[in-house]
């Protein structure tokens, strides 16, 4: 076990490195590898690894601090059995002190013991309700994970999640900001249209909203498009009359 000061230094350094990556381009695999290596030092683990779910929900090995960990992760991904898979599916940490005791992994457990890693812990990497991957910790000796270790492991799992999100967001930033802006603008346009129609038809804004929605539905148009046309005065006199006179 590293001393408290060393652990604190390592943590600070790791998170500082992470913070640095938030402002520049980075290689996500390299960064996840760094995280997984740091995790070995901090938790006194034999090996660690990070797996991510692909869009089809299949786990892929992203980083592993040793060849054994890599093999054990691959095994789980290919055989659909193991603690990492369980953490990925349940979204909850899976802590196994000793694989020699009863466990639900008849194929994985003997392999891990054979590889000299008789204790495995898996922490989910989550965004909202979605689990994006897992941080997996392999121990050389059976034994419990202390509360302090669990906090560090979970912090690393979150750090990994932020890293991945950062990577995805940087890649998709323009598309996502565009979507966010469109959604915000559309909401505002609908409110403006409610006001404009309420004024024209002398009804409440709630009633105006009902009319806009009914009109959009019966014309097979999007509510936002109808709202924008009304606000920008691009509706024909006929359409406008129908909206104003529409029966809710």
């Amino acid at each position, binding site marked *: 076990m590293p001393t408290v000061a060393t652990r604190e230094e390592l943590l600070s350094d790791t998170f500082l490195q992470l913070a640095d990556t938030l402002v520049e381009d980075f290689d996500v695999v390299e960064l996840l590898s760094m995280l997984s290596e740091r995790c070995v030092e901090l938790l006194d683990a034999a090996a660690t690894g990070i797996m991510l779910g692909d869009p089809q929900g299949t786990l892929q090995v992203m980083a592993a601090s040793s060849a054994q960990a890599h093999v054990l992760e691959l095994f789980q991904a290919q055989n659909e059995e193991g603690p990492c898979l369980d953490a990925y599916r349940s979204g909850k940490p899976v802590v196994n002190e000793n694989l020699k005791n009863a466990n639900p992994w008849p194929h994985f457990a003997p392999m891990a013991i054979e590889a000299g890693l008789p204790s495995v812990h898996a922490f989910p990497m989550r965004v909202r309700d979605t689990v994006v991957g897992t941080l997996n910790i392999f121990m050389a000796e059976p034994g419990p994970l202390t509360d302090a270790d669990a906090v560090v492991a*979970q912090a690393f799992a*979150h750090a990994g999640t932020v890293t991945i*999100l950062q990577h995805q967001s940087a890649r998709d930033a323009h598309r996502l900001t565009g979507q966010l802006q469109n959604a915000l603008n559309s909401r*505002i346009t609908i*409110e403006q249209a409610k*006001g404009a129609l309420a004024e024209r038809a002398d009804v409440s804004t709630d009633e105006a909203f009902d009319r806009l929605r009914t009109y959009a539905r019966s014309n097979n148009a999007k509510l936002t498009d109808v709202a924008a046309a009304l*606000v920008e005065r691009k509706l024909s006199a006929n359409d406008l009359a129908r909206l104003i006179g529409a029966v809710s």
Partner: protein
Amino acid sequence: MTTTEGRWLRVATAIGAWAGADPTPITLCDLCVDLLGLTGAGITLMADGGLGGGTFASDPATEALEELQFTLGDGPCRDAYEIGLPVLEADLAEGPTRWVVFTGRAVDAGIQAVFSFPMRIGAARVGALTLYRDRAGALSGEGHADALVLAEVATVALLAMQAYTPVGELAKEISIEGSYHAEVHQAAGMVSVQLDIGVGEALVRLRARGFALDRRIRDVAADVVARRVRFDDQRV
């Protein structure tokens, strides 16, 4: 655990706990207040390059200051968003020449320092995270670094929320009732018909009236929507 709880671990675990417990922009504001020892924190989202996209705040007093900036169309949020760099005012009582009205109100509300951080990833801009403190003085180096990370986290988190939402809809966390001045935009729609002008100009008129009468734009808008006030009525 306290001995191993360093600053970064504290920040990371706090962010992790936030992310794990139904995160919203409002709870992120609360997190900023706790982590950085602030009086208040607010997030303003921009729509069409203006301040109307939505505001979220840690408490009602901060909400009022965020909304004041929406009323004025001016303030640290807008500047941080516009220039894309942190806007730091360590001593409001010294009377910065920018945002004269905002500064006066903030000081009246007991705020001595304001720090606004742009929420951006590269060239993509979303809004601003603004920190309010009842004590004058610059943010510490660590506080500044943490604030940058928090603004980044806020941006990433909002975009992630949006990414997990169908195109065209707004993420439910962002779509909080009261966050986006619904009545103000409704009033702008009504005034645009009353005066036969565009909604953009109608919003400017609402702002001008709020400013002239020393009222919140929200209250002016409520009067319009409730039809207590018309803009084409010369007697008002």
